[in-house]
C-alpha cells in the first residue's frame, strides 16, 4: 500500500511550497510557500506567535480548512500520497487511517455526554473495523500505556469526572489508538499546570518513541520546544523563517526574528537579564522580507511576465 511507504525525502509528512489564500482574493496569501517535513520517529516543533499560520497548517493536514480559504499552490503528502490529488472520500479515509490529533483543550475535544470508552474505541471500530470487544481490550491497554491506574473506571467515566491531566492522558491514548503514522499535537500542554505539563510532555515523548510516530508539535513556547523537539520550523506571517535542529535554534538562530523570540522569553534563572520584546525593526524587516517574497511570487505567476520571459 502506497500510504505506508515514505516519501522521497524519507519523511512521512511532506508539505512542499504550500500556499493558502482567501478564495475571494487569491493574491492575499495566508500561508506563503511553506515547506515542512516530518520523518517517522521525529519530533518537529512548529513555532510561531498567534496569527503566524500554525493552525492553518494543521487544518490543511486534516483537510478541515475553513470554506473561505483554499490551497492555491503546493502539495501535502502523507507517506508519499498526494492528499490534494485524491478525491475527497479517499482523502478523508487516508487521513483518518494514518493521522491523529492531540488537541489543546481536552474538555472541548471530548464529547461531554458520552463515556470515555466509546470515544477511544470509535476510531478502532470505524477506521480499523475492529470488533467492540477487541477495541475495548485495546483501549484498556492504551490507558495502561498512558499510566492510568484504574483503566476500567476511566473507560466508564464521563469527561467531566476526570481532571484536566487525566483528560489529556485519555486524548493521548485515543490519538495513538489506531497506530497513526503522524500525530499533530496542537499546543497540548498550554492549558495545564507546569507540573502536569511536564508529566504530559514526558508521556507524549514516551509514546512517540515507543510507536515510532512522526510527531508535529505545534506550540508558542520555546521552553517546551527545547525539551521535546529534535527539529524546529519557525513561522512568521505564514512564512517559514527558520528550519533547523533544536540545538542550532538556540545556539545560533539564523533569522533575527527567531533570535528576538528567544530574547523575549522570560527565564527564572536569568532575572537580571532585561527582557526585550521583539523589536519593531525586526518585525518591520520581516514584514518587508515577506512583501518582497509576495511580490516575486505574484510576478512569477503573472501570465504577462511568463509570456515576456
Amino acid at each position, binding site marked *: 500500500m502506497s500510504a505506508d511507504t515514505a516519501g522521497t525525502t524519507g519523511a512521512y509528512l511532506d508539505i512542499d511550497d504550500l500556499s493558502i489564500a482567501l478564495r475571494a482574493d487569491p493574491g492575499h496569501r495566508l500561508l506563503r510557500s511553506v515547506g515542512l517535513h516530518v520523518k517517522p520517529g521525529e519530533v518537529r516543533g512548529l513555532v510561531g*506567535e*498567534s496569527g503566524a499560520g500554525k493552525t492553518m497548517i494543521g487544518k490543511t493536514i486534516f483537510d478541515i480548512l475553513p470554506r473561505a480559504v483554499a490551497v492555491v499552490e503546493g502539495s501535502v503528502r502523507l507517506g508519499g500520497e498526494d492528499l490534494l490529488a485524491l478525491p475527497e472520500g479517499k482523502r478523508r479515509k487516508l487521513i483518518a487511517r494514518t493521522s491523529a490529533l492531540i488537541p489543546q483543550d481536552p474538555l472541548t475535544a471530548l464529547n461531554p455526554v458520552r463515556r470515555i470508552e466509546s470515544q477511544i474505541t470509535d476510531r478502532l471500530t470505524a477506521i480499523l473495523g475492529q470488533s467492540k470487544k477487541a477495541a475495548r481490550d485495546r483501549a484498556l491497554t492504551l490507558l495502561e500505556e498512558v499510566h492510568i491506574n484504574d483503566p476500567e473506571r476511566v473507560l466508564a467515566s464521563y469527561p467531566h469526572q476526570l481532571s*484536566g491531566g487525566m483528560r489529556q492522558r485519555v486524548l493521548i491514548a485515543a490519538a495513538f489508538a489506531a497506530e497513526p503514522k503522524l500525530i499533530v499535537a496542537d499546543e497540548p500542554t498550554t492549558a495545564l*499546570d*507546569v*507540573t*502536569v*505539563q*511536564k508529566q504530559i*510532555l*514526558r508521556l507524549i*515523548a514516551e509514546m512517540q518513541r515507543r510507536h515510532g510516530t512522526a510527531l508535529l508539535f505545534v506550540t*508558542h*513556547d*520555546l*521552553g*517546551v*520546544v*527545547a*525539551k*521535546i523537539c529534535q527539529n524546529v520550523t519557525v513561522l512568521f506571517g505564514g512564512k517559514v523563517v527558520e528550519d533547523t535542529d*533544536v*540545538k542550532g535554534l*538556540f545556539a545560533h538562530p539564523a533569522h533575527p526574528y527567531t533570535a*528576538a*523570540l*528567544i530574547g*523575549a*522569553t*522570560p*527565564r*527564572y*534563572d536569568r*532575572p537580571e537579564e532585561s*527582557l*526585550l*520584546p*521583539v523589536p519593531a525593526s525586526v518585525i518591520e524587516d520581516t514584514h518587508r522580507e515577506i512583501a518582497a517574497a509576495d511580490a516575486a511570487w505574484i510576478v512569477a505567476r503573472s501570465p504577462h511576465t511568463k509570456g515576456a520571459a
Partner: protein
Amino acid sequence: MSEALFKVENLHVSLPDPNSKVLFGATPMIDILKGIDLEIEEGTVVGLVGESGSGKSTLGRTLVRLIEPVRGSIRFAGKDITHLDEDAMRPLRRDLQMIFQDPLSALNPRQTIGTIIGRPLILHKLAADRRAARKQAEEALDLVGLPTAFAGRYPHELSGGQRQRVGIARAIATHPRFVLADEVVSGLDVSSQAQILTLLARLKTELKLTIVFISHDLSVVRRLCDRVVVLRRGEVLENRPTGPLFDNPEHPYTAELKAAIPLPEVDEGWLDAS
C-alpha cells in the same frame, strides 16, 4: 506608614461546590482558603503562585472583596474591610482595581476605549464631566504607551497586547493604591508579554503601585515580583523575597514547581528527570 497596606489574618473562604447538585436545602460548601496570613507592603509587587485549585484567584478576589470571607480579617490601609457591604466598599473601589486575564471579555465591546476608561472616573467623581473624563482617559492611554487617538476606537479593533494595555489603563486611571493582576500575560504572545511586563514594572515605580500578580508562570513572576507567595490547597507554603525563594526554595513543592518549568535551552535529561 507603620502598618502594611494589606494585613490578612487567618483568612478562611468557602465557596459553593460547583459539582454538587442539590435540589433542596443549602449547597454544600468547599473550603478554598484555610487560614491565610499575609501582609502586603505598600509599593511592592507580590506574586501569588500555585497550581489550578490552589486558591490563588480566590485569595486575590477576596482581597478586593469580590468574595466575603467566612472567618479571619482583612485590613486595607488600616481599615477593616472583612465584612463591609457593597455600599460601604464603593468609596474604596477606586483604590482597589483589577486587571483580568482576557481583556476582550473584560472590555465592553459596545463602548469606545475612551468611555471604558473614562466611565469609572465619572462614577467615582474623579472627573467633573465627560470631557474631563475623556482627557484623563487619554492621559492614562499615554501612560501605558498607547496613542491617545485609541480613545475613539472599540476593543475589537485592537490586538491582544493593545487590549491588555487598555485593561491596565482602565485600572490605573482612578489612581488606585492597589491593583490585582490575575494571569494578565498568560493569553499573550511572548513579545506582547515582554512589553506588558516591562510596562507593569515601570508603572510600579512611577505610580508607586502595590500589585498582587497572580500567575502560574514562575519565570514571569521572577521578573516582576518583589515577593512570592506559594499556595497549595488553600494554604501558604512559602512567602519570601523572590531572589532567595528561587535560589533556595525551602519547601519541596516550590522546588518541584521550579524544576517543572521548561527553560528555553536544550537539556536532554530534563524530560526524564522527576
